[in-house]
């Protein structure tokens, strides 16, 4: 039983990371109706920036927030320079650009920081809190950080004028222009926010898996499975899906198929959801009138 609860809690911690990245995917999906395959590699690159800042002697949390700011700005620059010129382009063209971004970030990280694994610090103590034996401090910290990010994002989109305008721009760009919203900038802000949320995921996962250019490739797959499971157009669903995938992956990996085959859980989930319930648990069923 102890091993079971241990797996559940570490599953929740991993799930928090997947949930953050899944949320980043959903934010881009809502505006573009496409999955940004480069989201994971962007997060990985952000984590390298944090690593470099920490190496330069900055305290962890200073580096953390600085990285968020840099990632946010970077996301905006990417949207303005790479994605915006594609307005009106075919789906295939955009997907290829996403894959191009993935390759560029991967290669840049390897080129600048080398492919050697690097340890990444955790801001949380090494000892498990309150003397419990189920969950480590870093895992608890990851869950807490994820929840704070989610609550802040929710409040931003729900209660601020800018958040409302961003939702409107993603849903109905034509009407948004007719009320005076600068839709292009809202999309760019969305990219910035998604990049920042991805950076949080990267910085939280790096202490668990070590920092290397490959760090996020598997995690993006789990995040994608989480987003699909919850419903790719539903942010709250994607978050819940991310947590569910984290727990499932850990339990099935530990007790059923072994840790080496864990990633296949994500693939099985993706295929399963697409076959059985393509709109996920909470997504909108898409019906097209012919």
């Amino acid at each position, binding site marked *: 039983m102890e091993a079971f609860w241990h797996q559940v809690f570490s599953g929740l911690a991993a799930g928090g990371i997947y949930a953050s990245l899944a949320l980043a995917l959903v934010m881009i999906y809502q505006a573009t109706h496409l999955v940004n395959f480069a989201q994971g590699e962007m997060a990985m690159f952000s984590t390298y920036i944090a690593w470099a800042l920490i190496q330069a002697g900055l305290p962890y949390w200073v580096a953390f927030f600085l990285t968020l700011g840099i990632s946010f700005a970077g996301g905006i620059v990417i949207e303005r320079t790479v994605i915006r010129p594609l307005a009106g382009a075919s789906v295939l063209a955009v997907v290829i650009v996403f894959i191009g971004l993935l390759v560029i970030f991967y290669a840049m990280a390897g080129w600048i920081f080398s492919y050697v694994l690097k340890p990444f610090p955790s801001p949380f103590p090494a000892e498990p809190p309150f003397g419990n034996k189920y969950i480590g401090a870093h895992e608890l910290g990851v869950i807490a950080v994820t929840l704070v990010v989610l609550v802040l994002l929710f409040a931003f989109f729900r209660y601020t004028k800018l958040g*409302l*305008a961003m*939702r409107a721009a993603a*849903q*109905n760009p*034509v009407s948004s*222009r*007719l009320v*005076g*919203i600068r839709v292009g900038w809202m999309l760019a802000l969305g990219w910035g926010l998604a990049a920042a949320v991805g950076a949080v995921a990267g910085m939280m996962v790096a202490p668990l898996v070590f920092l290397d250019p490959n760090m996020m490739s598997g995690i993006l797959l789990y995040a994608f499975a989480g987003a699909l499971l919850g419903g790719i157009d539903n942010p709250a669903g994607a978050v819940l899906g991310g947590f569910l995938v984290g727990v499932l992956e850990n339990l099935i990996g530990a007790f059923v198929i072994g840790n080496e085959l864990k990633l296949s859980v994500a693939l099985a989930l993706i295929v399963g959801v697409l076959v059985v319930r393509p709109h996920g648990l909470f997504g909108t069923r898409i019906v097209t009138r012919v």
Partner: protein
Amino acid sequence: MAALLEVAGLRAGYGAGQVLHGLSFALEEGGIAAILGANGAGKTTTLRALCNMIPAAGEIRLAGERIDRLATEDIVRRGVGHVPDGRGTFVHLTVEENLRLGAYTRTDKAAVATGMETVYGYFPRLAERRKQQAGTLSGGEQQMLAISRALMLQPRLLLLDEPSFGLAPLVVEEIFAIMRKINREQRVAVLLVEQNASLALALADHAYLLETGRVVISGTADEISRDESIRRSYLGY
């Protein structure tokens, strides 16, 4: 009275197909003008061209100032409220969020709150449904919401694209009666595009008749509705 909107030689279309072939018309400050015509005459295209939602050429002046090179958002910011064809509802947002978006460009919170009470006064049914998802409203209520959303901008000019489309006659009457009130009380000029000519002529003071992208007849609403031959050959009633 001074002209609020002056349009000269407006040409526009979609891709290779040109729809408007040099349209000219004007609208007085605080006036109501109707653009009439059959399906495909270019009525909706005219409104879209005015807001630069489609590529267009020609001169468009708002209160004497050229607006034809401006982006849609900037034309809106100059006080042009557009109630688009299809109503443009943000269906996943609540009624109140739709109205808040209408006032997106305004910064005076107190004035926006007053404005919201004013539109709820015109359309009490929206007030009852303020927390409801806009997509769940009936067609008539969505039309009221679309008009209210445009009013939240505090526009000088309101562009109305077929407000009667798909609605029951009673609802249409209600909306047109309130439009007259809004025109007077808010001192907003209205450019109305309608297929229902008799309704539009009853509300408007001027009318322009469009045929294949050109103004073929223009005059006061009275003259046009009294002219038997125009009525028979163009308006079909």
